[in-house]
């Protein structure tokens, strides 16, 4: 197998570089995964139609992906794509949308496209906010988070978009983050291959808005975007992987470094072999992570839970995390094919 260089992908699939994305934005990574997925599948570029609405995520295909592109109005990419796909169902139709675009203003179209099982692949970039307009609250913003338009904390619970899509009838549903870029590429490939409505949610970093959104204190070692990627890793688990049983978290009630010292003391007193660190977690902010060196230590540490309770809330490895992976993958009758069967029948042509 020949190794494909960056310039191979760039020359073939991408136009108008450099992109207008901010430094560290997740959109470039998503474009990259998409390009590689398309290339690996060998989809005919001339038959790809990319449709996007309004928002930073809408700029992933338009103008950057070198296929036919429709850059349409806010939230309406799916119905535009629906019209084009119905009329020419040889098109590989891909919608790029944001959480505000796809789940807020365009939420109704999203569920109806899933219900119809029309052959459209929707890649929804979830950065937990309306990023382009300055970081307002979105239907995906976590409970309690402060934004420009939820200054006293968000009172609304976020959508679980994958559950929503599953319930609405999408035939391929997956969620990854920009930390899981290889898995993302594989899911995009599966989504493109699926003949039906496919939905891939990507939790993505926005170093501009999320610093305030997640109240991130800059770390000494990492830039903002890497710090967010680490947070994504720490805040998610992969559904089909076995549960990891050698660590837990403590959400301290009091000051972080003081709590850390207290936890260390307790662990040492009980001769647990451990490593303690501070990590960012979605929803919880910066908290303590205790990793045990071996299974005995882990068991010992679990017996200490009562003592930790005074310092803070103990979270088991998957507790409060967002599940990643493939939620639905099934085949079911595709909409534009059914339409063609009707017209062929009505015209008296045998299919």
């Amino acid at each position, binding site marked *: 197998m020949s190794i494909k260089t960056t310039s191979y992908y760039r020359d073939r699939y991408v*136009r*108008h570089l450099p992109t207008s994305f901010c430094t560290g934005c997740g959109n470039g990574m998503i474009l990259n995964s998409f390009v590689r997925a398309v290339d690996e599948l060998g989809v005919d570029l*001339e*038959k790809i*139609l990319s*449709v996007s609405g309004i928002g930073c995520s809408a700029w992933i295909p*338009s*103008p950057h992906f*070198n*296929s*036919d*592109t*429709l*850059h*349409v*109005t806010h939230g*309406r990419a799916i*119905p*535009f*794509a*629906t*019209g*084009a*796909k*119905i*009329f*020419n169902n*040889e*098109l590989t139709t891909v919608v790029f949308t944001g959480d505000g675009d796809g789940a807020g203003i365009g939420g*109704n*179209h999203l569920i*109806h496209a899933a219900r119809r099982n029309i052959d459209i692949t929707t890649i929804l970039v979830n950065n937990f906010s309306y990023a382009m307009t300055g970081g307002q609250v979105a239907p995906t913003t976590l409970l309690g988070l402060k934004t420009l338009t939820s200054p006293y904390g968000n009172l609304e619970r976020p959508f679980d978009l994958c559950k929503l899509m599953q319930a609405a009838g999408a035939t391929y549903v997956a969620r990854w983050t920009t930390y899981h870029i290889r898995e993302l590429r594989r899911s995009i490939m599966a989504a493109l291959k699926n003949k039906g409505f496919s939905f891939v949610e990507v939790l993505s970093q926005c170093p501009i808005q999320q610093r305030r959104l997640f109240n991130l204190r800059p770390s000494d070692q990492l830039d903002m975007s890497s710090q967010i990627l680490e947070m994504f890793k720490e805040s998610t688990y992969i559904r089909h992987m076995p549960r990891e049983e050698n660590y837990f978290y403590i959400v301290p009630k009091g000051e972080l470094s003081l709590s850390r010292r207290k936890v260390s003391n307790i662990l040492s007193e009980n001769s647990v072999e451990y490593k303690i660190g501070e990590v960012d977690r979605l929803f919880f902010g910066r908290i303590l992570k205790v990793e045990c060196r071996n299974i005995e230590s882990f068991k010992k540490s679990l017996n200490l839970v009562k003592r930790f309770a005074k310092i803070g809330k103990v979270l088991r490895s998957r507790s409060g995390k967002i599940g990643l992976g493939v939620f639905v993958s099934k085949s079911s009758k595709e909409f534009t094919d059914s*339409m063609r069967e*009707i*017209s062929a029948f*009505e*015209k*008296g*042509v045998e299919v």
Partner: protein
Amino acid sequence: MVRNSLSRICYNGEEGREMLAPGKHILLGNHACAEGALHVGCDFFAGYPITPASEISHYMAKWLSKLGGFYIQMEDEIASISAILGASWAGAKAMTATSGPGFSLMQENLSYAYMTETPCVIVNVQRSGPSTGQATLPAQQDVYQARYGAHGDYEAIVLTPWSVQEMFDLTVKAFNLSEKLRNPVILLADGAIGHMREGIIVPEKVKRIGRRCPESVECTPFDTDDPSLVPEMPVIGQGYHLLVTGSAHRSSGLRDYTPQQHRDTVERICTKIRRARNEIIEVDQNNIEDADIAVISYGVAARPSFGAMLKALDNGLKVGMLRLKTIWPFPDREIRKATEGIDNILVVEMNMGKIVREVERAVARRINVVLAPKVGGEVHTSDEIFQAIRRLKQ
């Protein structure tokens, strides 16, 4: 001979090409609109149910798939217009039909269609508003919305049928103008015409104009040297690597916010329609040469107006009539010219007074302009209009 409306023929001898045969038929206005669309080659329809426009959808749902076209009921009117615009870029002759509330929902994407120069036909079978108003009853209250409802600068093309025949004919014209000029065209009908049954003649041959497609993939889909100012329009899926955006863009379609670029675009999309005004505008003149009173009306209101004119003539009054088949671009030159020797103008419309303002502007207060308004869902009676004409003479 009036043929049974349900008897259909194989059109052009092509297999499955079933459409209403040329000749006389009795049809519902909304069905005539749909039939006109089928005859001119409409092959994509997306809609959402609403009185008094639904029969257009019902008809298209039934017949489009027999003709190899596609019908879809979308989840709302926003989705309906989005779907027809997407289909149009995929090469379809696309259409939707609605009434006031749905037409309001379509405005944002109508603006997108003007900006991206996407051919499409939008039928608004007007009902009495504001809001849900009198859902089943006719009105002519959306004439300004049809012109100015979408945001930004653009030129609207709005046709107003007064009969079932014109529901057919002007739908055909709407498609042809839309494809030729790469502009949305609005057929502004009303509940009375849409729900009326009348005899119509389906012509032997319906003129079909298609959009101009570029010969090479090296084209500029958003600018042209052609004097029509209408660029050639590529189709999705044929290797053009199209960039279509509602944002300000260059001739290639690439986003570009520079002042000069956008000025050029907006000027061109407006000028292309202004240049084509003579082709777009149709005004039906009746008896206007000998008149000293002109009745100006359009759509359903023109029907009792016509009756009133006949009655006035019987009563020895010198009355003529101008019936506007096109209200936008507004036929101001045509009105100015036709009313040169006239003393009084009576504008008859089913609203609180809209087109009357345009008429006042057109004649620049040279002539006394009086309005005969009507709201409440009832069409004017010809006697009401006759009395209004008489009052002008006093």
